[in-house]
């Protein structure tokens, strides 16, 4: 396999990992005002992701770094072209990250309320915008022959992209609700499980519509299989959530997210950012790539370190595998 293909796959895997992991973090953040009826309950929700959210976010930093190292043209065009959406994502991630750490640092209700809002909006904004961004990557954007983005902000906000945003919003909400049902006890667990089923039904409609629309834009046999798989996984997850098989429900939503991302990347290949104007502007895994020498070094680094990272990150989830409830929340 060509190294450019390997790195296309790796970037896809990194974003997939990011959406699975930070997807439920975003979901938990958005469900904070819904499922957290009082401060203690809200603390339960936040503490389900407390030990892991930071490590989850590093998947994004690694995906961005991998894109920069392996496909500098893709990184450069995408990040400068999607300037304002990325700015909003950054501001959201800043407010949200600080909020987790600072929320419990003062006892005043007003203080906590403000950070709760930061967590909510800091989760909701990226949950929508990542869908908008990936829909645009998939559909293509106006690029000139130098691969420079020549559109404006409104060129990124069309119905297909908004449906993409709605899909990721729904997926992350459902995924988060399922995660909470898996990680909590008592009342929160019950309500999260029930909510997951409701959210999931709406999400399934949006996701099927979005993936179907996507496949009319560009498609491949593999992409069709993956899209069908994504839909089945989501439905399977919801069925499991209905009967309170929380582990399977979480597996279902996680696989659904993975296969949905895989559908997009599979149909996109070998393009990485199509141009809707000049065909010469289209970025591909070949013309956006670094030199074979750089890719070879990066491949070795990835081969050695990725298993190590997966091992210790997986171990962290095992260490904090225990469910938590209001009874576990200390006074301070």
């Amino acid at each position, binding site marked *: 396999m060509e190294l450019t293909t390997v790195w296309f796959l790796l970037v896809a895997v990194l974003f997939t990992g990011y959406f699975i992991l930070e997807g439920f973090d975003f979901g938990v953040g958005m469900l904070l005002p819904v499922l957290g009826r009082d401060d203690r309950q809200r603390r339960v929700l936040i503490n389900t992701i407390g*030990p892991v959210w*930071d490590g989850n976010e590093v998947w994004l930093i690694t995906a961005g770094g991998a894109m920069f190292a392996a496909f*500098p043209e893709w990184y450069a065009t995408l*990040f400068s072209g999607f300037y304002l959406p990325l700015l909003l994502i950054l501001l959201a991630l800043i407010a949200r990250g*600080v909020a987790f750490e*600072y929320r419990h640092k003062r006892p005043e209700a007003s203080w906590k309320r403000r950070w709760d809002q930061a967590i909510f909006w800091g989760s909701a904004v990226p949950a929508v915008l990542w869908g908008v961004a990936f829909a645009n990557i998939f559909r293509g954007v106006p690029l000139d022959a130098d691969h420079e983005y*020549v559109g404006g902000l409104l060129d990124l906000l069309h119905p297909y992209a908004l449906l993409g945003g709605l899909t990721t919003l729904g997926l992350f909400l459902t995924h988060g609700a399922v995660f909470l049902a898996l990680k909590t006890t008592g009342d929160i667990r019950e309500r999260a499980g029930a909510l997951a089923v409701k959210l999931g039904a709406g999400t399934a409609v949006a996701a099927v519509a979005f993936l179907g629309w996507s496949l009319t834009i560009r498609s491949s046999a593999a992409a069709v299989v993956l899209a069908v798989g994504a839909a089945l996984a989501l439905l399977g997850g919801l069925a499991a959530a209905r009967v309170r098989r929380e582990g399977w429900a979480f597996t279902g939503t996680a696989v659904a997210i993975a296969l949905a991302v895989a559908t997009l990347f599979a149909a996109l290949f070998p393009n990485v950012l199509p141009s809707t104007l000049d065909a010469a502007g289209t970025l591909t895994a070949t013309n956006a790539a670094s030199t074979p020498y750089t890719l070879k070094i990066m491949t070795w680094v990835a081969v050695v370190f990725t298993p190590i*990272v997966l091992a210790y990150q997986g171990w962290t989830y095992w260490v904090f595998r*225990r469910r938590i409830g209001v009874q576990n929340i200390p006074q301070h």
Partner: protein
Amino acid sequence: MDALDVARWQFGVTTVYHFLFVPLTIGLSVLVAILQTMWHRTGNERYLKLTKFYGKLFLINFAMGVVTGIVQEFQFGMNWSDYSRFVGDIFGAPLAIEALVAFFLESTFIGLWIFGWDRLPKRLHLAAIWAAAIGTNLSAYFILAANSFMQNPVGFRINPDSGRAELTDFVAVLTNKVALVTFPHTLAGSFLVAGSLVVTVGLWHVMRNRGSADTGAYRFATKFGSWVVLVSSALVVLTGDIQGKIMTEVQPMKMAAAEGLYTTESPASFSVLTVGSLDGSREVFALKIPYLLSFLGTGDPHGTVQGINDLQAQYASQYGPGNYAPIIPVTYWSFRFMIGFGLAAAAIALLVLWSQRKGRTPSSKWLLRAGLVMPVLPLLANSFGWIFTEMGRQPWIVFGEMLTRNGVSRSVSLTEVLTSFTAFTLIYATLAVIEFKLLVRYARAGVPDVSDEPADDDTDDAERPLAFAY
């Protein structure tokens, strides 16, 4: 004002801001790990209290470093996309490796450390803080290797077809002599900040909280921090000296700009030397200037350091017409502020140690005041060091290879970059106030009571409160 100017201001502001938090993260992670190791070894509760106390301050600061760091990685592509296209083949690799090798280690193990007090065996919990500290310090290496490529590009060639820089020798990039000396210099500068914070907080409690049962702990912290400051300032000077020599060799213009040295041969150029009119400052630093000239120059007291005008003429013939000198007052003053503020922190550390000699309790109001401003000094020194090193490289973004003005994103409008600059400035300013107040609040609160540490009792695991919760 155009998009380029605003993009530069934004990069400068967000980077200097980010680096207000990074030194504490780098230094304090290790100092907290050392304190916890001392507790582990001796079983003395004093060290556990200090671990938890400084650990809290560390985490308040850590969060800010993390979230402002994401901006940095995105910003290359968002605002400097032509730069990213030009150097991506080389510059992206250390960034990706930094994330994969260092950031995962740091973020995962910091989570284990924060929440793992009762979840992990003691030994493993101790290992977690060390792993996080190693990750943090490792991350500094990769990002400094990337920065060093901008100062002294090595291990690459320019592809004649694409006009882009391509990696030819990755080992050369990682062992860039600028990176090898900047890494210890930056780490030492970071420990200077962390040590100063430890001193400040300890000293405040020693002097204001007399008779407290924890005075012994604070006294220890004050001495411990002072020694960290003294040792790291010695290392800063040592590595800074080597840096100066390397700079003279690879970026002579930066060295000349640091000294405001236009030319030693033409009296005329001395008369137009605007920095020269600020010569009153030289008396303030009178003791250090001869030292700097002998060590940072050629190493030979009679040797001549190349002047700005000569270098300008040389670069103009080499790279074509243009101004190849940085803004001299900025480099001249930032260089002196860096050194001055750093040494001031070391001087205070000496005073603090002296004031506590043979078990004395310091009482001087002035000492307390000096102690309170202490952490600000090395922070300023760090900021000015970066301002010097980055502004001194101008007009280049990659020295000798690409001008800063050619690296900016062409597709990002003035409105867009003004929007982001305003947004970052507002959110950063707000968070700075919040963070500072929290640090003060928790610093004043003092060491926690550790006597009610959850012992292994019979309480059902599912019912037991978490040792730590957000």
